[in-house]
């Protein structure tokens, strides 16, 4: 299905990804990371994106954020094609460590975008304090990022996005480096934020439970070159809690459904042929993606 026919005048979708394709052209390696992605996200939606490692989730996010130009197709945000990072958007990068400025303290890192928003000093400080406390880092505002543990750094990046109060929030595996308990807390933080502020959220994760617990919808991507394999609506009640929701029968069903799709995804890509990822100039290499379980045969 090609979305190119859709006119941008229907007010519904905030974000429209249409026939998105992205090829990384390098000197010795050209990779079609994303083959054909079409979907839309309504205002105030919370959509989780799951897919195998290397599927193109980060690529997709970077296209939506306007950091990467698609090879073809387009990303339409609020009716206009995305040309660069749109205002009012915040992104939490997968490489959290590198996205923090090492020359600034935690507090300064979180505060910088707020200064740009021309907020008053008092308001800024309040936002910084609240968001740092929300991620459990109220006690380290004066530390430098490189003095923090991995998980703490990731939470700083998260706090920065939260304090920014964006309209649209893109998160790329934002909880990958934090422990289970903190993770659960942060999940609840994201949901409460979403409910309170009506922000539209696109959440990339590789944790299926997390995707099902958090989202209204879960987009399952195939492995590279990528297409949308499935779009699962999560019909769990709006009020979720870590214990109750996760132990409900519907949760287990949805989880199983997504899991099944992911299993398929690992072995199927947008490409029906035997070359799920094309390495143009290394044709002598086996192009079929190997499964780790093959390792036993070593």
């Amino acid at each position, binding site marked *: 299905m090609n979305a190119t026919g859709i006119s941008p005048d229907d007010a519904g979708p905030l974000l429209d990804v249409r026939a998105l394709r992205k090829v990384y052209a390098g000197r010795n390696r050209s990779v079609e990371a994303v083959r054909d992605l079409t979907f839309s996200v309504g205002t105030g939606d919370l959509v989780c994106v799951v897919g195998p490692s290397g599927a193109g989730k980060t690529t997709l996010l970077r296209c939506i954020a306007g950091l990467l130009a698609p090879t073809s197709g387009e990303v339409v945000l609020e009716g206009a094609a995305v040309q660069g990072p749109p205002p009012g958007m915040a992104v939490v990068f997968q490489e959290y460590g*590198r996205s923090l400025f090492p020359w600034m303290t935690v507090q300064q890192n979180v505060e910088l*975008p707020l200064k740009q928003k021309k907020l008053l000093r008092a308001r800024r400080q309040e936002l910084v304090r609240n968001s740092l406390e929300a991620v459990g880092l109220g006690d380290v505002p004066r530390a430098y990022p490189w003095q923090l543990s991995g998980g703490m750094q990731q939470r700083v990046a998260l706090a920065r996005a939260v304090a920014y109060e964006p309209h649209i929030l893109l998160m790329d595996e934002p909880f990958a480096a934090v422990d289970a308990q903190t993770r659960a807390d942060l999940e609840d933080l994201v949901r409460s934020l979403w409910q309170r502020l009506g922000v539209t959220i696109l959440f990339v994760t590789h944790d299926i439970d997390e995707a099902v617990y958090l989202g209204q919808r879960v987009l399952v991507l195939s492995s590279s070159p990528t297409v949308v394999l499935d779009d699962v609506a999560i019909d769990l009640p709006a009020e979720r809690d870590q214990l109750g929701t996760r132990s409900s029968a519907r949760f287990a069903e949805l989880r199983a459904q997504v899991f099944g799709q992911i299993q398929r995804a690992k072995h199927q890509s947008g490409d029906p042929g035997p070359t799920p990822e094309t390495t143009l100039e290394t044709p002598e290499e086996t192009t079929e993606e190997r499964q780790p379980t093959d390792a036993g045969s070593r």
Partner: protein
Amino acid sequence: MTPAATVPPPAATAPVSTGRSGGTGRGGNALLGLLGFATFLVVLEVVPRSGLVSANYLPPTSRIAGALAELLGEGRFWAAVTDTLRGWFLGLAIAVALGVVVGFVLGTVPVLREFTASTIEFLRPIPSVALIPLAVLLFGSELRSVLLLVVYAAFWQVLVQVLYGVRDVDPVARDTAYTFGLSRWTRIRHLLWPTALPYLLTGIRLAAAVALILAITAELIIGAPGLGNEINRAQSGGAVDSMYALIIVTGLLGVAVNVLARRLERAVLSWHPSVRGEESP
């Protein structure tokens, strides 16, 4: 850790550290530096005394020291030092200011950078020395001549370092700045500037030495007042000892400049791995 007693103050903490502890602090460094310099002076004493070269042409340290002591008593010498330092400092300040501004403008506007690259490469290697007639023609044997030469030579050092520094921005950090919609100015101030700072500091150190060299060379060749002029006088009078004494003075100025630059670096780059690494064991 906390309530008072549990943790000794940081300064006293690390007596237990194993094998490869740092030990020497800043004082230790200064001591080592002095030791290095002393070694150098000893070599300078021994080489002429051993007859490797005649002491007529390269006097031993002790004789240079004698001439230096004499110089220090002369008002003329101090006037020359002041003149040189003035030319050096003004020239350096102008060069750094210009280099930073032009560097950031060119560095942040790719089109400009692309279209000026060839011209920069063309102008850079033109030696200041070749510009001497032009300088004399325009300004005579004055401070302004010296400044022209100093600025011309030092400017490129700063510019190139800044251009490369700006290029070194971490892509993820840059994307972060874009997505938060940071304005150009904020990006320059909070992203490009800190990234380019280590490069700039190297540039300043390079430029400081070049500026000093050019100030003295200009004085030497044009005859503007200053240490170079004194060196010329000593040279053409065959006063080898005082000539070397003057050279030692220029060298010491260079060392002083470097000490200042290092101080600056420690102050503004405390977050940088190169400085951080020196504080932990």
